[in-house]
């Protein structure tokens, strides 16, 4: 499983990257962590003729809070994001998702942006981005444009990135201030760390009296891309999140789901399990929010 031959450039700056992308178009491809791309190249499912290595472009790595968002540069390592105080505090759902992403070895190279650019619909980072309504910045020599994650991730393994663009930043919305926040990601996968068959993400914010005033929910594995669980969010907003309400509201996502059968699980399995996993994640997030309340921590994930 040796990759087909390609040219290689180590970019030193973002301009290097964008310049090359403009000149080479669809023959060139950016390599960040490579945890997905190199495997595909080994199987010759991906055959770029020119790899642009962005791992040494300082401008493409780092975590910084900015107003209502946490801005994570695309080439930030998953391990670095896990260790970031900013992420823990201001992107608790991402912090909850990252331990589920692959294994230690893959997180040491894999990046936040790389996962999104790859477009794997089972990826926990994509699930998180969709649940939160994240935005991405795409850079090119023609300038930068910002897209809603749902306009970026348009299908399984498919993004709307243009030939000459490089994903530069991911903006994760912070939970609103003044609430007790809890976040949880739950998934069923063949083994821990494997691609999720069904994934569920929940970020909850509670007022002092336990009323839900912030709720973001997402489910992966039962549609071409992860699904924002808007009907469930609407139904539970403003309630006290009783178990039975959560169980009932979770089933409201069924019309949004269009699962397929594959070697891991049938469509029927996914349709059945998705609402249940969503309910579990929602309850776990709620319980964490309550724990933070009791501790007086204010906000943040476990």
């Amino acid at each position, binding site marked *: 499983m040796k990759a087909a031959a390609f040219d290689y450039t180590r970019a030193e700056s973002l301009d290097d990257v964008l310049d090359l992308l403009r000149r080479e178009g669809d023959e060139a491809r950016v*390599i960040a962590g490579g945890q997905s791309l190199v495997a595909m190249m080994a199987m010759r499912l991906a055959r770029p003729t020119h790899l642009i290595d962005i791992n040494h472009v300082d401008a493409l790595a780092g975590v910084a809070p900015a107003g209502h968002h946490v801005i994570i540069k695309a080439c930030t390592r998953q391990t670095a994001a896990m260790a970031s105080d900013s992420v823990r505090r201001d992107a608790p759902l991402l912090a909850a998702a990252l331990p589920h992403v692959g294994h230690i070895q893959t997180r040491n190279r894999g990046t936040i942006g790389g996962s999104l650019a790859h477009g794997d619909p089972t990826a926990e980072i994509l699930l998180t981005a969709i649940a939160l309504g994240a935005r991405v910045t795409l850079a090119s020599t023609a300038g930068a444009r910002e897209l809603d994650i749902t306009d970026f991730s348009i299908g399984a393994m498919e993004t709307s990135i243009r030939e000459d663009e490089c994903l530069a930043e991911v903006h994760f919305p912070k939970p609103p201030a003044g609430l007790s926040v809890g976040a949880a990601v739950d998934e069923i996968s063949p083994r821990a760390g494997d691609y999720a068959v069904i994934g569920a993400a929940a970020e909850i914010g509670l007022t002092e009296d336990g009323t839900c005033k912030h709720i973001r929910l997402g489910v992966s594995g039962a549609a071409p891309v992860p699904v924002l669980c808007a009907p469930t969010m609407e139904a539970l907003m403003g309630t006290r999140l009783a178990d039975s309400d959560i169980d009932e509201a979770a089933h409201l996502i069924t019309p949004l789901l269009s699962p397929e059968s594959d070697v891991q699980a049938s469509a029927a399995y996914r349709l059945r399990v998705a609402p249940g996993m969503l309910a579990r994640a929602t309850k776990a997030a709620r319980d964490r929010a309550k724990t933070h309340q009791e501790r007086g921590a204010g906000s943040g994930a476990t």
Partner: protein
Amino acid sequence: MTHSISVTVNGATRQAEVEPRQTLVDFLREQLGLTGTHVGCEHGVCGACSVLLDGEPIRSCLMFAVQTDGHEITTVEGLREEDGALGILQDSFWETHALQCGYCTPGMLIAGQDLLTRNPNPSDEEIREAIAGNLCRCTGYLQIVDAIRLAGARMRQAPEALGTEAGDV
């Protein structure tokens, strides 16, 4: 077309010419003759190819050698003490018979070494998590967990051994 790289491997700086598509694991094995790192799947699942890149465990089948220019690599060959004696973790693997065929062992040692560097007193659950990205088909993992636990205990008794290994981690 080849590229020139300069990479420090187990403390020694090596210059080499590499074809871009040559993976790091193939480079280590074939050009540097460091055959201790093994190829198991070439698609990033089995962990037999694990090495330390700038002190952190990675899958060397998912990286191209050309990307390592200017970086530091530690392989299983670099885990010995400076005087050539076995590292505590290696010796602990021997003590508990944490291997049978030996094929996954270098990767397991790398994962174990990384864990004990970050966390000198890991729980069994933390040990299992640290090696979860390394497949073993021989042992069923128990004796590997025993070895890493034992090594941690031995290292805690000899604090100067913490984080010490031949190589430049």
